[in-house]
């Protein structure tokens, strides 16, 4: 038959192996983070009981040998880095196997979002180290909460959404795939990190002397800062993603904006995140409510990924030229 496209099955198989291994490594890292979290919680409760202030107290200068929690946490971060490397190579191999950008279907797109989330998380962690080792350690305890949605999403992508390595339909054969979908997955992954930070911010609550499982969470301000800074970077990227999507739609579908379900929900998410940024500048909304808005924003992003792609039929279901 004419126009037979070639798929390099060997590379595709290696890509799948790398993907699954990365997922398992993330899972290990998550468990180690949980171990660190549990140990920290005990320590923090002890501190609170002793009346020596909240959990945001930095470690004393004369550093004792690393605690078990510390070692757990450090190993978890090292594993996360390893996982991210494998994860990245799985995407690169997928791309090499099908001779195109490796985000042409929902499996690949979800995988890219997860990779961005993990890398984004590592960057946040790295930047917080510059602000002091104590704060990095504080922030590190939430690693399991960042990795949890990543592992779930990767599991769903690898099973329910999995698509065999194959060429994409003609409408997707455009350099805009590289631009638009990259921007969408980068912002999506970053919104995931921001959403987790805001959710934990809400979990932690307003009380200054938190106890129990909340005690090991980073300070409210630290969580709020992570959520805001990540969103501030992700929002213009998301704006760019929508605009390049519109430019692409103008070339592929005959109009730059047509309220296709995917477009509509992308617009809703944009408005919600714009609301978040405004809420941060409005008295009475600055903290608690803003965090709710941020969490809601990520919920809309997830809705757009799953519900609109799987349930609602639209242009983004790639029904094609037919």
């Amino acid at each position, binding site marked *: 038959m004419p126009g037979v496209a070639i798929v390099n099955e060997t590379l595709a198989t290696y890509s799948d192996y790398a993907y699954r291994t990365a997922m398992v490594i993330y899972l290990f890292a998550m468990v180690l983070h949980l171990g660190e979290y549990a140990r920290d919680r005990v320590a923090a409760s002890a501190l609170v009981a002793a009346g020596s202030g909240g959990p945001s107290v930095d470690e004393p200068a004369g550093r004792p040998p690393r605690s078990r929690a510390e070692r757990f946490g450090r190993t978890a971060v090292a594993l996360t880095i390893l996982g991210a490397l494998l994860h990245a190579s799985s995407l690169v191999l997928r791309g090499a196997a099908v001779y195109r950008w490796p985000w042409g279907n929902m499996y690949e797109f979800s995988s890219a979002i997860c990779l961005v989330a993990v890398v984004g998380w590592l960057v946040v962690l790295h930047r917080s180290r510059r602000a002091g080792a104590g704060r990095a350690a504080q922030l590190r305890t939430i690693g399991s909460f960042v990795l949890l949605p990543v592992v779930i999403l990767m599991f769903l992508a690898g099973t329910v959404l999995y698509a065999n390595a194959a060429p994409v339909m*003609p409408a997707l054969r455009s350099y805009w795939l590289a631009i638009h979908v990259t921007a969408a997955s980068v912002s999506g992954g970053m919104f995931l990190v921001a959403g987790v930070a805001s959710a934990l911010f809400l979990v932690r609550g307003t009380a200054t002397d938190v106890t129990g499982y909340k005690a090991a969470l980073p300070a409210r301000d630290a969580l709020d800062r992570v959520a805001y800074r990540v969103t501030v970077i992700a929002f213009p990227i998301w704006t760019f993603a929508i605009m390049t999507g519109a430019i692409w739609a103008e070339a592929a579908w005959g109009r730059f904006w047509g309220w296709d379900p995917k477009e509509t929900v992308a617009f809703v998410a944009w408005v919600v995140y714009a609301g978040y940024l405004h*809420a941060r500048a409005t008295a009475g*909304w600055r903290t608690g409510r803003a965090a709710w808005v941020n969490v809601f924003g990520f919920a809309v992003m997830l809705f757009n990924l799953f519900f609109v792609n799987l349930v609602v039929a639209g242009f983004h279901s790639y029904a094609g030229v037919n």
Partner: protein
Amino acid sequence: MSLTTEPRTETAGPAPRGRTTLGRVLALLRNTWRGLTSMRTALTLLFLLALAALPGALLPQRSLNSAKVDQYIQNRPTLGPLLQKLGFFEVFASSWFAAVYLLLFVSLIGCLTPRTLEYARAFRAAPVVTPRNLSRMPHHASATLDGTPAQMLEKVRARLRGWRVAVVEEPGGDVAVSAERGYLREAGNLVFHIALVGLLIGIAAGKLYGYEGQVIVMTGGNQFCNTGILGYDSFKAGTRVDGTALDPFCIKVDDFDAQYLPNGAPDSFRASIGYQSGAELDAGPGGPWHPYQLEVNSPLRVAGDRVYLLGHGYAPVFTVTFPGGETRTVATQWRLADPNTLLSEGATKIDRPGMTDETQRRSSQIAITGLFAPTSSGGKVVTSLYPAPLDPELAVDVYRGDLGLDNGRGQSIFEVDQRQVASGALKKVARSNLKLGQQLVLDDGTVVRFGSLSQWVSLQVSHDPAEKWVLVFAVLVLAGLGTSLTIRRRRFWVRLRPVRDAGGPGRTVVEIGGLARTDQAGYGEEFTRLRAELLGGDGSENHDGSENHDGSANHDGSANHDGSANHDGSANHDGSANHDGSANVTDPGGGS
């Protein structure tokens, strides 16, 4: 947000009664305006906008799929009509959606106008006065250096190139330098919001003056000219378009080629077309045609319009030889019954030529209707296995009689009118499967031959005169957003106090302070550089621990300076408001 509608009449003359009434009305207007332009309202409207848009994704929409809407209403006899009445199936054309975004944009303009004026004023204003006590600033350092204050001032000025600088001689003989930078942040913010208004206007203009038409053209050199609405199969236009002044151009479709993967998934679609526009049209169809390969993702842009390849399908070509020896060859497009295998269905309707008697003509019309499989499964019941025409086969019924084409009722080109069949005016005379080149003979000797296969393409012509403006404003939106979210507004102060001891060579106490008006993060590094360059190694000695300088580290608990949320110049977060003029007895530089 600040306000410009200061009602003057309130302070004008006496007239107590009129004044109170008028005053009340004005107060109401003023309060309404204030309420509408407040950030809280804007926030509420933003969330309302998000909420109002959601049904557009959750419910079927007329503009996208009208049949689905009808199905939805049919399945819900009580809820459906109600939603229909409330405009939930045309969310983005509904009055309530328009109300939300128009209110939002009124609020936005009401907020932008005073802020733009304020920005214009602030742009000309000098930086704020240097606070008395610089050590209270989030960033602070001081050192005693060799050199007179004048020399130091030179150095400071040189270093602060690019900053807006004001130098003040203070009463005590000190020289205070106040510098500010990052004005572009607010400029970006304003550009972003103004460009959003432009974007909305551009989109609205496109809807008013734009049109979109769809037409099916058979391959093999058939033409379509954009001369009027009647040439289209469907046409949707803005209210300012009456269809009389379309941009003239003609399209000639020569060929269509589709490639498929072994599993039947499409690989590429390409229509080879030619086009003429403007003065070239005078030459007529015989004149020169510009060749173009029309593909998905590659529309033809001609005469201010865009031409898209939307779809394609097959048209079986029938040659009918009537008993009298007259032949007619007809190809009519058949529509897709299955978009994956391109199984098609349709009705090819043929008038017998040479019939002068009207009743006789009407009773001898022929319709060939049924299914077409490009790659036939074979067997009695034909289905399609593959979208390319590898082994075409038809399964047809042939009708003869009165098709009802002249009875004034519209009918589908894809079906025979079942009413004609029911009334007996149209009779089924044959049923057969036909491969390419095969024929069947009707009872009266008429021969129906499946001679060849043609293809059709469906084209869309779009016209949106405001499209380029929408793009310009979109770029401005992005540029403004990037600017406002990356640039930090920050202040930097230097106080130079001559050391008056021993009468030796001039020495100066140089004290510096810094404050980021928006986001503290990142300013620490810039401040550290400034300190190193202005104070040299001495600077750090004076200071208590270097970790205080790296960005956000030292502000952990103090929400005031931290949040980075304070874009709006709220006085709380503005260093000058807090620190200015607070007479501080411990300030060594102040007073006597």
